[in-house]
């Protein structure tokens, strides 16, 4: 059993851009700005928008699906349309929600690169982008999930979704028992980034 804390805040990592590749990237940036292809202000606006996205957006959608059965139905049948109902749009990507049940556990990966609904959920975790995760979770999902602390009975079916083209995925975790009278904010606080990817199953230990 791992002690991987799904809610732990990010550890600061002062990765300085001192590799050749990072310097080439920053050099490219300066050349493009100098040539007028974009401005520092535009860059700032794009970064601010990216930083505004977070798993809280996913938590809001999950909580609504738990408390409104017809929304849940619409979300599962046409994720993009349901997403627009709550004020988000990730077109041209097709937002696709996969529901966990007692007998099904879903987990998301992009083996070919690291596709992830970043404009909705924020930056993907470092492990999601790693070649090890991308390599192993398709082949031995149960072992990988165990490393995240997710233990599954044999009778639970594991569905691995490889995001190979234009769909972008979110897992709809199961609502924990004993939360039927919880207010919305408390329900939202249960939903973690990892539970939306599928590397966490239980939201209440």
């Amino acid at each position, binding site marked *: 059993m791992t002690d991987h804390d799904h809610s732990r805040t990010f550890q*600061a990592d002062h990765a300085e851009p001192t*590799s050749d*590749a*990072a310097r080439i990237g920053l050099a490219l940036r300066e050349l493009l700005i100098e040539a007028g*292809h974009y401005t520092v202000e535009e860059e700032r606006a794009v*970064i601010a928008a990216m930083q505004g996205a977070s798993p809280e957006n996913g938590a809001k959608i999950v909580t609504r699906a738990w408390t409104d059965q017809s929304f849940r139905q619409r979300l599962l049948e046409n994720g993009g349309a349901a997403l627009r109902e709550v004020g988000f749009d990730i077109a041209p990507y097709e937002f696709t929600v996969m529901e966990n049940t007692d007998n099904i556990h879903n987990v998301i990966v992009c083996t*070919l690169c690291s596709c992830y609904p970043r404009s909705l959920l924020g930056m993907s975790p470092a492990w999601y982008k790693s070649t090890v995760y991308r390599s192993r979770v398709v082949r031995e999902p149960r072992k990988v999930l165990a490393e995240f602390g997710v233990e599954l009975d044999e009778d639970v079916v594991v569905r691995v979704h490889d995001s190979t083209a234009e769909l972008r995925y979110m897992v709809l975790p199961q609502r924990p028992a004993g939360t039927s009278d919880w207010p919305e904010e408390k329900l939202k606080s249960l939903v973690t980034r990892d539970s939306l990817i599928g590397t966490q199953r239980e939201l209440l230990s």
Partner: protein
Amino acid sequence: MSEPWGPHDVGGRQGGPVDLSEHDTAHWEWQIDAMVRLALTKGLISDFAELRDGIEQLTQEDYESASYYERWAKALANTLVSRGVVTEDALAEKANAIRERQETEAQS
């Protein structure tokens, strides 16, 4: 199973433990991400597929030794050089200037 056709085609291939440590996105990484998005919206590249193609054409060694945003940086630079938006010389010169700037700052 078919042969992998590029360094990115990793599904089912490797082993080893997943490193679960978190990584704060550094400021320069946000800048690389923003640069890719702006390259798209400004028409410097026509589609995200071009960037992925650039990444897939990296050598195995370049791919595996680079972090996620280092791969993006390399791929976008290669793509924009081949499209004639920037030259290799200008990039090298600018990268050198950045290195000098960083080394000076490190000393101060």
